[in-house]
């Protein structure tokens, strides 16, 4: 039993690591293609049919590029910063139930690495640590643009965290549990039971905070090319630079899974679609939404982000929590 459990866990970890590293690479291709079509371009076309092998070419480039560390940088911290971003992105996935249980050869597999009863908080907390990567990278680079990127990381972290926490609080009150599996089971009754109908405001707030959490446009202040060169990543090259982006894309998938599990019915069967495919469709819808928003919206300024988070979204979230509480008390 013990040995089987260890082997099962290790296999799950390897599958999650391999699958999501590959998916992160593939998501960069999808992003470039979708952006290109939305802007009436073709996107990558030269490597392979429709440029599908572009991912491979980019991978080879990243792996073989010189690992360059500038002289003025604080070496150990400069080296460890990208690892923090990538590692926390994958650690956060440990508590996400990705698919329904299935059986292989009489052995039931639960596609979650660690089923803890505070899964939701764990995922959000560990994803939050991911922003230490850009922060440390910017402060250790010894470059003024990087330092500006780091300063923006700090304000972004302190702004969105409150909104994320308060926006998921209302669904947590309704379900009465912090376990993502309980969230999924609560919505087992079909589309009508989805929490998004009961908590539309929380859903929108969570998505907006999710954009800030994964530092995607319109909140990608950290590496705002037009203002701070490349922000925290200015001095990075090769695989260390690549790790930041594997982390970012893995976080996009995590937010996609979280939003699907909390608000959109998780991995329950959807009409005739089996649960595993239903959740994949939902996650890919969110990935598409991330790219869509990037194609449609301009960046915001840092002060606009703080204004939005503290003066608009946080009061709305608090009012939402209070109203949810009152409704639950009397009905």
């Amino acid at each position, binding site marked *: 039993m013990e040995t089987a459990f260890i082997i099962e866990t290790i296999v799950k970890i390897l599958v999650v690591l391999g699958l999501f590293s590959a998916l992160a690479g593939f998501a960069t291709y999808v992003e470039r293609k979708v952006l290109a079509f939305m802007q009436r371009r073709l996107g990558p076309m030269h490597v392979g049919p429709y440029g599908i092998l572009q991912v491979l070419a980019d991978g080879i480039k990243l792996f073989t590029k010189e690992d360059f560390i500038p002289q*003025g*940088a*604080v070496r*150990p*911290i400069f080296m460890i910063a990208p690892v923090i971003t990538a590692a926390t992105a994958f650690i956060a996935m440990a508590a996400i139930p990705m698919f329904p249980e299935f059986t292989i050869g009489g052995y039931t597999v639960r596609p979650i690495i660690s089923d*803890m*009863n*505070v899964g939701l*908080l*764990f995922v*959000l*907390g*560990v994803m*939050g*640590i991911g*922003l*230490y990567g850009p*922060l*440390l990278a910017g*402060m*250790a680079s*010894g470059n003024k643009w990087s*330092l500006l990127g*780091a*300063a923006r990381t*700090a*304000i972004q*972290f*302190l702004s969105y*965290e409150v909104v994320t*926490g308060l926006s998921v609080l209302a669904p947590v009150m309704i379900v009465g549990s*912090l376990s993502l599996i309980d969230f999924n089971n609560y919505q087992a009754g079909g589309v009508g039971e989805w929490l998004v109908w009961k908590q539309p405001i929380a859903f929108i707030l969570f998505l907006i905070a999710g954009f800030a959490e994964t530092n995607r446009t319109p909140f990608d202040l950290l590496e705002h090319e037009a203002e701070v060169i490349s922000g925290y990543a200015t001095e990075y090259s090769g695989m260390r630079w690549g790790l930041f982006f594997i982390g970012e894309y893995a976080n996009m998938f995590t937010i996609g899974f979280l939003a699907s599990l909390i608000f959109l019915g998780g991995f329950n069967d959807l009409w005739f679609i089996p649960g595993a495919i239903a959740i994949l469709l939902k996650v890919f819808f969110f990935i598409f939404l991330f790219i869509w928003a990037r194609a449609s919206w301009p960046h915001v*300024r840092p*002060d606009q982000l703080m204004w939005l988070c503290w003066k608009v979204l946080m009061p709305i979230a608090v009012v939402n929590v209070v109203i949810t509480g009152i409704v639950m008390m009397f009905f």
Partner: protein
Amino acid sequence: MFEVVAFYLFAALTIVMFVITVMSKNALYAMSSLAAGMIFISAFFFLLDADFLGVVQIIVYSGAVMALYAFAMMFMDTTKEVKENNPPKRIVFFLSGMIALLLVLILLTPIISDKVKALYPMSDEIGNTEAVGIVLFTKYLVPFEVAAIMLLVAMIAGIILASKRMDESITLKIDQEIEQKGAE
């Protein structure tokens, strides 16, 4: 077996991290190891099956140390070493050593004596999130509410101190006006 390995691993990591925090002269090293140490401490909560407290430790301290970084960024060049002027004092070493010894003794009491028992032992029927909530809202309700009011006071004071000139936007002002303000 896993618990023992994990405990000693995280114990060693935590101690090393906090030693770096105290000994290092570089602000960036000190803060990064502080953040790492705080996060490694959460491992002990997870080992004791107190998942909720472990996660709260991660969330609270990652946010708090992030604010420290922001201050360090504003006050000093974090890539350079800070010149510290604190010659070793015997009394400081003696007192801190004694306090550490005292803490170790206090934490050892449940091992030495059988008479020390948990006031609110965990039960299998309720999860640890609920257990924390029950104790917080029954036995410790008054301290909890007092802490909430103190935080509210601190927050209002902070907002009033910071927002004296919040209605004027610095970024939208033209340079001349800023120079005029500077001359005054």
